[in-house]
C-alpha cells in the first residue's frame, strides 16, 4: 500500500516535538514572577560584580562632620553616622551576602550530591548506614551548634561557609539519593552497565544529569535560606565582622538607630527582602516548570 498523503500532511501539521528541558524553559518563561526574579538576580549579580568600578564612594570613606543624613543628590540612599555612603555599602554588602549565599550553597551542593549519589547508587547496607547518619545529623538542633561553633572557634569567613554548608547538605543528599535510586532501576542503566560502562562514569554522565531537576530547584531555594542564616548570625554578632559588612550586618546597625535614621534600616532591609523574594519566586517557578505536579513545600 502506498502512504496516504494525509500522513505527510499530518507530520507537517503536528507541532515540533519538544524535549523535557525545552518544555520546562517554556513553562518558566510564562511564569511572570519567576522571570522577574531571574532578571532581578542577573542584574543584581552584574552590579555587584562591577561594584568596585562603579561605586560612587570608597567603602570605608568617612565624613565625620557630615554624620548621618537622608537621601540627597550626593548620597542617593543617605549616609550613616560616620558619613559613609549607604548605597556604596549596600552594594559591597550585597557582594558579601551573595558570595556567602553562593559559596555555602555550593559547598552544600557538592557534599550533598556526592553523598546522595553514592548512597542511592550503592544501596543496601551502605545506603542504610549513610542515611541513618543523615537522620542523626538532621535531628541535631543545627542553630544551636552553629552558634556554638562560631562562638568557640571565632568568627572567620571560611568557618562560616563550612558551618552553613555543613548544615544545608542534608536535604540535598536525601533528594539526590531518592532520585538516583529511582533512576537506577531504569532499563537503560542495566543496558549501559552490561555494555561495560563503569559505575563512576554511569553516575557522572547519566544519573546525575537526570537527577538534576530537583537539585536545581532545591539549590535555588537553598541560597535564600543560607543568606538568611548568615544575616541572622551577623545580627547576633557572630557572622561577618566589621569592617566587612553584609546585608545582615547593615540591618543590625540600622536597627540600633532606626528611630533617628530609618533609612539605615529600610534600604538594607529592602535589599535583602527583595533579593530573597526574587530567589524564592525563581525557585518556585523552576519547580513548577520542571514538575508541575509536584506539591509545594
Amino acid at each position, binding site marked *: 500500500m502506498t502512504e496516504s498523503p494525509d500522513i505527510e500532511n499530518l507530520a507537517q501539521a503536528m507541532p515540533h516535538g519538544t524535549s523535557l528541558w525545552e518544555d520546562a524553559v517554556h513553562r518558566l518563561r510564562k511564569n511572570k514572577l519567576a522571570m522577574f526574579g531571574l532578571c532581578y538576580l542577573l542584574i543584581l549579580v552584574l552590579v555587584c560584580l562591577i561594584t568596585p568600578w562603579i561605586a560612587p564612594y570608597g567603602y*570605608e570613606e*568617612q565624613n*565625620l*562632620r557630615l*554624620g*548621618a543624613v537622608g537621601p540627597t543628590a550626593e548620597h542617593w540612599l543617605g549616609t550613616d*553616622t*560616620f558619613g559613609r555612603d549607604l548605597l556604596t555599602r549596600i552594594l559591597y554588602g550585597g557582594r558579601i551576602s551573595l558570595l556567602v549565599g553562593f559559596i555555602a550553597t555550593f559547598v552544600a551542593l557538592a557534599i550533598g550530591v556526592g553523598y546522595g549519589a553514592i548512597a542511592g547508587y550503592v544501596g543496601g547496607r551502605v545506603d542504610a548506614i549513610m542515611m541513618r547518619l543523615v537522620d542523626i545529623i538532621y535531628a541535631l538542633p543545627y542553630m544551636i551548634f552553629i552558634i556554638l561553633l562560631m*562562638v568557640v572557634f*571565632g568568627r572567620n569567613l571560611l568557618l562560616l561557609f563550612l558551618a552553613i554548608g555543613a548544615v544545608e547538605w542534608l536535604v540535598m543528599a536525601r533528594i539526590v539519593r531518592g532520585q538516583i535510586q529511582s533512576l537506577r532501576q531504569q532499563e537503560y542503566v542495566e543496558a549501559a552497565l552490561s555494555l561495560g560502562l563503569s559505575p563512576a562514569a554511569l553516575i557522572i554522565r547519566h544519573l546525575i544529569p537526570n537527577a538534576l531537576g530537583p537539585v536545581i530547584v532545591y539549590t535555588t531555594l537553598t541560597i535564600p535560606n543560607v543568606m538568611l542564616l548568615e544575616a541572622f548570625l551577623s545580627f547576633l*554578632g557572630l557572622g561577618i*565582622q*566589621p*569592617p566587612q559588612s553584609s546585608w545582615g550586618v547593615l540591618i543590625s546597625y540600622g*536597627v*540600633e*538607630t532606626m528611630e*533617628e*535614621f530609618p533609612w539605615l534600616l529600610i534600604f538594607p532591609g529592602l535589599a535583602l527582602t527583595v533579593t530573597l523574594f526574587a530567589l524564592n519566586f525563581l525557585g518556585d517557578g523552576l519547580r513548577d516548570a520542571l514538575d508541575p505536579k509536584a506539591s509545594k513545600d
Partner: protein
Amino acid sequence: MPQIRAVSFVLLFSLFLSACGGGNSETRVEAGNREGVLHFGNHSEPQGLDPHIVTGVPENHIILSLFEGLVSKNPYTLEVEPGVAESWEISEDGRVYTFHLRNNAKWSNGDPVTAEDFRWSWQRALSPILGSEYSYMYYGIVNAEAYNKGDMPDFSQVGVKVLDTLTLEVTLISPVPYFLQLTDHHSMYPIHRSSVESFGAADDRIAPWAREGSIVTNGAFVVTEWQVNSHVRVEKNPLYWDADKVKLNAIVFYPTENLVTEERMFRDGQLHRTEEIPLEKIATYRQEQPEVVAIAPWIGSYFYMINTTRHPLDDVRVRKALAMSIDRELVSETVIQGVHLPSTSLVPPGTLGYEPPKVFSYDPEQARALLAEAGYPNGEGFPGFELLYNTHEDHRKIAVALQQMWLENLNINVNLVNQEWKVYLDSHNNMNYDMSRRGWIGDFVDPYTFLNMYISEGGNNNTGFANARYDEIVLKEAPAELDRDKRYKLYREAETILLENMPILPVFTYQFKHLIQTSVKGMPTNIMDHYNYKYVSLEPQG
C-alpha cells in the same frame, strides 16, 4: 465561604484588641513615684551578690543597697560618713584606726552586727583560695598580703583586732590617706557568718548562700525577689539602724542589656534611671529634655593598651606616632557626641586635684616623621596590626573612626577584631593581642588606683612594660610621702615615664551618661558614680 471569613476576622480582631492592653493607665514610673519604688536600669544580670567575689558595676549597684561597711559616702561630696561604725580615731602616725561600731546595727535576721563579724569577714575575703579579685584593697593592712598569698597562714598576725564586741582596731603598714574610703568598697563589707557557713565552707565560691530567701544582709534594703534575666527587687529593711532616714520603699533593678531598648523603656515611663544613653539620642535629649540628662565626669580612663613585645609595636616611635595621629577632639565631638573627653594621660585630670603631665598632643606631621624614623616612611612596609575591642557599639564606633584616621594620617592598615568579654579578657591575660581597647574605672579617688596598674608585676599590666624607676615611685616613694603636693609631684614623674614609653595609648577620660527622671531626688552625679540610696526619694510629678 463568607461565614468562615467573617468568623475568623472577628476572632482575630478581638484577639488583637484584647491583647492591646490598657492604653492610658498609669506608667510604671508614675506608680513608682506614688509607692516609693525606684525602677533602676542596671545594664546586665548580676553574676551574684557575694560582696567579696563580684567585680562588676551592676552587681555593685545592688550590693550598695543590701550591705553596709564601716563607713558610707555622701553622694554629693563623696565625703566619708558613719556607717556601721559610728565614730573612729586615727593615731598620730596615721597607721592605727580604731572603729567604734554602733550598738543598734542589725543583720536582716535580727542578729547584731559586731566587730567580730568584720574580722571574720575580712579573713574570709583574704582567704587564699577564695580568689577575691579585690584582695589588693586590703594590702595596706599589716600582713594582709602575706596571708592572702598563702605565705602566712596565721590570721592573728594580720593587723585586724577585735578589742571588744563593738570595737575594731586596724593597723596599716604605712599611712594610707584614702583608707577610710576603701572600707566603703564592697570587698570590705561584712557578711553573716552562720548563714554563710550553713551552706558549706566559707571559702567555697559556689556555695549558694547569696540568693534570695537565704542571703542575710545588714543594709538599708533586703532582697525579696530575684528572677534571673528579669529583675531583682529589694525592699526597705525595717531592722536597719537608720531606717527612719530611708525614704524609698523598694528598688527594682532591671538587666537592660540593650541600650536602645533601655532608652525606650525610659521614654515609655518604665524606668526612673538608665545605665546608658544611645549616642544618637544624646543631641535630641540635650535639646528637648536637658533636665533628665546626667552626663558628668567619671573617674575612669578609656585607652588602648599595647603589647610592647609584638612587632611593629615594639618600637616606641611607632607607638608615639600612633598616639599623635588621632584627632581626639574630632572623634569625641562627632562619633560619641561629646560624651567622653579627649585625654592624653592615664590618670583623669582633676582626680582629687591631681593634674597629669602633658607629654604629647595631636600632631600628624610629627607622627609621620616618627614613623619614617622607625623605618616606615609614609607607611611603606608597615606590617599592620590588629586592634582588639570588646563587643559594644560604642567601642566599635570609636575603633572604626581611629582606624580611618590612621589610614589617612599615616597611610597604614589596621585590622579590627572584636571579642566578647570573656575571650577578650583571656586575650589580655595571655598577652594574645597587638593593641586592645581598655577601660579602667578607679576604685577610689586617688591617682594610685590608675598608676598601680602598670607596675612590672601588676596582674593588670599585660603590656610588657616594666620600668624600675616607675615601680620605685609608685610602690615605695609615693605611699611614704604624706604631703599631698609632694606625692602628686612624684606621681607626675611616674606618669611621665609611663607616657614617654607609651605602653598605653590614652584616648578619653570617661564621663558616664544616664537618663534620670525628674521625680528622682537625692541621686546627684559624683565622680565615682556612687549611689547612696538612703538619700533618694521620689516626688510624684505634678
